[in-house]
Structure formats: structure tokens, C-alpha cells
């Protein structure tokens, strides 16, 4: 029982990280039809931005961690906004150009971070409570799992509030369905594009910082690895659907944990790809179809 509890909660925690990366990716694709391969770069830049800020703060470990969190979220949002304004905006009518430029940005970001900080992982010094565990059904669950899961639930709630209760959310939901008609109602969809990129970047930045707590370290290539699974989550969940991404992220996280534990290492990753293929065959629109 304790193993099941540990695997399930760890899987949900991993799913929470996937969700934080996938939510922005899904909205960006749903609204703008941009395949953003640079999304993992937002994750990486934010993680290192947070690490630099946290290590500059003396004293209290909670304060260090919270400063790192704030800087990570802000740097993710800022980097994403700059990416949209400078690189994506001139290429809206050229999808191949978007793919090339975002892939290039992802590769360049990893290389720059490796050049600046080295290839070795950086260890995060966490507050004592985060290094401790909480017993659940006989399993000692690392407390970082609760933080990651709680943050993902908070982001899900905030995103749903934004989408369902604000005018910009209404614009995004309508834009996911028919961007041209939103523009034909006199609405500058471009602003919504920038906002969605900023929100996606902030969520990816949060994921970058929380992944540091989850794994205990940050490194230059984790963003790229997370991006692969986030893309899978977005497709399984339904392009443009935040709720679909949340459900798919948890399914993928738990599946990976169980199969990697009970099967050989890597079986979980392979099973996720099989799940993707199965969903594409049976339900090509994903769990939720195209609805924010």
C-alpha cells in the first residue's frame, strides 16, 4: 500500500510539473497556432534566473526560495513576452519560420546556459521542511511533492478563473475557436497573443523553479526533456484545452511512475508514447477537443 501511495503521489507531482509546462503550450497553440519549441527555454532561463536570485539573498532559506520563485516566474514571463514580440510576431503567417526560430532559440538558450553556468547540475538549498517527508498510508512522501501539486492546482484555478471570468479570457476562448472572427468584432487579438505568451512563460518559469525543488537540482537540459512530455500531454489533453491538459498530465505522470517502477527503466516513457498513439487513433482531438 505504501508503494502505491508513493508512486501515485509522486506521479501526480510529476504530472503537476508537466501540466505547468503544458498549460501555456496548449493555450499558445490553441489561440495562435504556434508550435512553440522554445517553451522549454522559458523553463530553463527561469530556473537559472531563480537560482541566481536565490543565491544572492543572504540568510533565511524560505526567503531565498520565495525570492527565487518570484524571479523565476517573472523571468519566464519576460522571456516569453520578448520571444513573442521580437521573434514570433513577424512570423505569424509563416509556420515553418516559427518552427525554425523557436527550435533555434531553444538550442541557443541551452548552449548559452551551458556556457554561462556549466553542464553540471546546480544544487538548490531548500528549507528544512521541503527536505522532510510526510507519512501517507505508510509511505514517506517528500514534502516538495505537496508544493508542486498545490502550485499546479493554484495555477489551474487561476487559469480557469482567467478564462471563464475575465474579458481577456473570453477573447482567448473565442480566439481558440475562430481568431479571424474575434478580430472582425473589433478586438486586437495581437494583445491577447502577447498576454497568452506571458502567462505561458510564467507558468513554465514556475515549473522550472518547482522542478528544481522536485529533483533537488537544476540543469540546462531538463527544460528540453520536460517539453517533449508536455507536447505529448497537450496532444492527449486536446490542443487548446487547459482542463484536458491537466487530466492528461496526471495520467501521463502516474503511468510513467508505475511502469518505470514495476517494469524496466524507460518502460514508462515508452508507454506514454504508446498512449499518445492510441489517443491519436481513437480520439484524434484528445480528451477535450479544442476548447479552452
Amino acid at each position: 500500500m505504501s508503494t502505491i501511495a508513493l508512486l501515485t503521489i509522486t506521479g501526480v507531482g510529476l504530472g503537476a510539473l508537466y501540466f505547468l509546462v503544458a498549460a501555456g503550450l496548449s493555450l499558445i497553440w490553441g489561440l495562435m497556432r504556434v508550435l512553440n519549441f522554445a517553451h522549454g527555454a522559458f523553463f530553463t532561463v527561469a530556473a537559472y534566473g531563480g537560482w541566481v536570485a536565490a543565491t544572492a539573498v543572504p540568510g533565511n532559506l524560505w526567503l531565498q526560495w520565495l525570492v527565487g520563485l518570484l524571479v523565476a516566474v517573472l523571468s519566464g514571463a519576460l522571456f516569453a513576452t520578448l520571444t513573442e514580440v521580437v521573434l514570433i510576431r513577424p512570423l505569424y503567417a509563416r509556420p515553418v519560420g516559427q518552427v525554425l526560430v523557436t527550435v533555434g532559440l531553444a538550442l541557443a538558450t541551452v548552449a548559452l546556459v551551458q556556457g554561462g553556468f556549466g553542464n553540471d547540475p546546480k544544487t538548490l538549498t531548500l528549507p528544512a521542511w521541503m527536505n522532510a517527508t510526510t507519512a501517507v498510508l505508510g509511505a514517506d512522501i517528500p514534502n516538495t511533492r505537496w508544493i508542486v501539486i498545490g502550485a499546479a492546482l493554484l495555477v489551474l484555478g487561476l487559469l480557469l478563473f482567467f478564462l471563464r471570468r475575465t474579458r481577456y479570457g473570453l477573447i482567448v476562448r473565442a480566439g481558440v475557436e475562430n481568431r479571424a472572427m474575434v478580430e472582425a468584432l473589433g478586438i486586437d487579438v495581437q494583445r491577447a497573443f502577447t498576454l497568452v505568451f506571458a502567462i505561458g512563460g510564467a507558468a513554465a518559469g514556475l515549473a522550472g523553479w518547482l522542478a528544481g525543488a522536485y529533483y533537488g537540482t537544476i540543469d540546462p537540459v531538463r527544460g528540453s526533456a520536460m517539453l517533449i512530455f508536455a507536447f505529448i500531454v497537450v496532444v492527449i489533453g486536446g490542443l487548446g484545452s487547459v482542463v484536458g491538459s491537466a487530466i492528461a498530465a496526471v495520467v501521463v505522470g502516474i503511468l510513467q511512475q508505475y511502469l518505470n517502477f514495476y517494469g524496466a527503466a524507460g518502460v514508462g516513457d515508452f508507454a506514454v508514447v504508446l498512449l499518445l498513439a492510441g489517443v491519436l487513433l481513437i480520439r484524434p482531438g484528445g480528451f477535450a477537443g479544442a476548447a479552452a
Partner: protein
Amino acid sequence: MSERATLLGVRDLHVHIGESHIRQGVSFDVREGGITGLLGRNGVGKTTTLRGILGMVPRTGSVTLAGEELVRSRTHDIVRHGVGYVPEDRDVFAGLTVEENLRLAERSGSPLRYDLVYELFPELKARAAQKAGTLSGGQQQMVSLARALLNAQNRLLLIDEPTKGLSPLYTRNVADALRRAAEVATILLVEQNLRVAQALVGDVIVLDQGRVAFTGRVEELMDDPALTRKHLGLATTESH
């Protein structure tokens, strides 16, 4: 024609979609007030012309609204100058409720005509919480017309085949709504149903083979069988 001011001026409008040169140098005026019909055979480019006016497709030439040049403006900016658009396929947001579809059309700084909208389409008030995608075609057309009418700032409405695919009952409702809408805004109407067009429009612009083939009053067009046969073809025999 009487001396009414020109509201919409289109000069040498060229539209390019992909590699194709769709509309080649069309010029016409729409005078202020009433309903002007944009007619022509199927596939002649009436919808493309409306989309070109709105900047929804790449175009060159000149598009003026009350003398102000708009051809370099983006779609949302053109619309904010006081243009409402009802597309051919209605394009309601299926996943949003009726109320959300209307709320999306609200523009800050423009008085809203909810009273008029609900007077014309009382059904929409009763169905405010219903997802637009679950409405019938006629009801969706009401939502689409309501969005265009909602802003009192809109002085020109571009309406594309509003009765297409509708039952006779809804066709009558839409025609009545257009008559009432013409009291508060100028309408440029694309309509394949000639009976409806004849009953509603005053001025007509007929497109044929990529150019304007006729402009004048609708009676002049309809009273000349040779002209209608030549420029409207089989459309003259349509009965709805």
C-alpha cells in the same frame, strides 16, 4: 440616384489569396443610408470583396469610410471605425454562450443597442445561457446579426448571405430585422436569394468576371431580363 453622401468608397481593390489574384481592381461606392445589394453569380467574389474591405485577406487599392482611408489598417481597427460584419457562415463562437457571444462584441466607448437587439430577436434573451453551437442555423444567424448591430457606433454593416440555408420563417425574420437595422445603419448586403434582395435593397452593385458590371437601382436591374440573365445567370430563376 438621389444625392446621398458616399459612406464607403472602394477603388481599384485587388485581393490576393496565396498565389492567386482573386479580385482584380474593383471600384464602387456605397451611399449613406438604406441597403445596397452586392450581387452576382456564385463564385464571382462577393464574399472576397467584403473580406477585402475588412482587411481579412491581403489587398491593395483604396477603401475609405466617410472619406477616411482604411486600406492600411488592420481588421480590428477598421471595425472600430464603425463597421459591423455578419459573415457568410455566421461564425458564432460555438463553445461560448449566446450572452458571451454578445458580450464579446461589446466595444468600450460605444453605446450598446441591447434594447434593439432583444426587440428584433427576443429568442436570444431567452437563450442567453445556451451554448451558441447548440442553436439552430436561424438562431445562430440572429446571434451573428445581433453582434453586428450591438454597437451603436457601427454605421456600416457588411452582411454576407444572411438567409442562406434558412427556413422560410427565419428568412422572413431576418429580412424584417434587416429592414429595421437599415434605419440605424447603412447596409452592404450580399444576397443570393433575389426575391429577398429585391424586397430589401435600393442600390445594387453587380459583380461579374472580376469587375463591377452594373451599378444602379434594383428596379433598373430587375426590369431588364437581358441584364439579369447576363450578370446573374441562373440566380434569376431561384425561388425560396
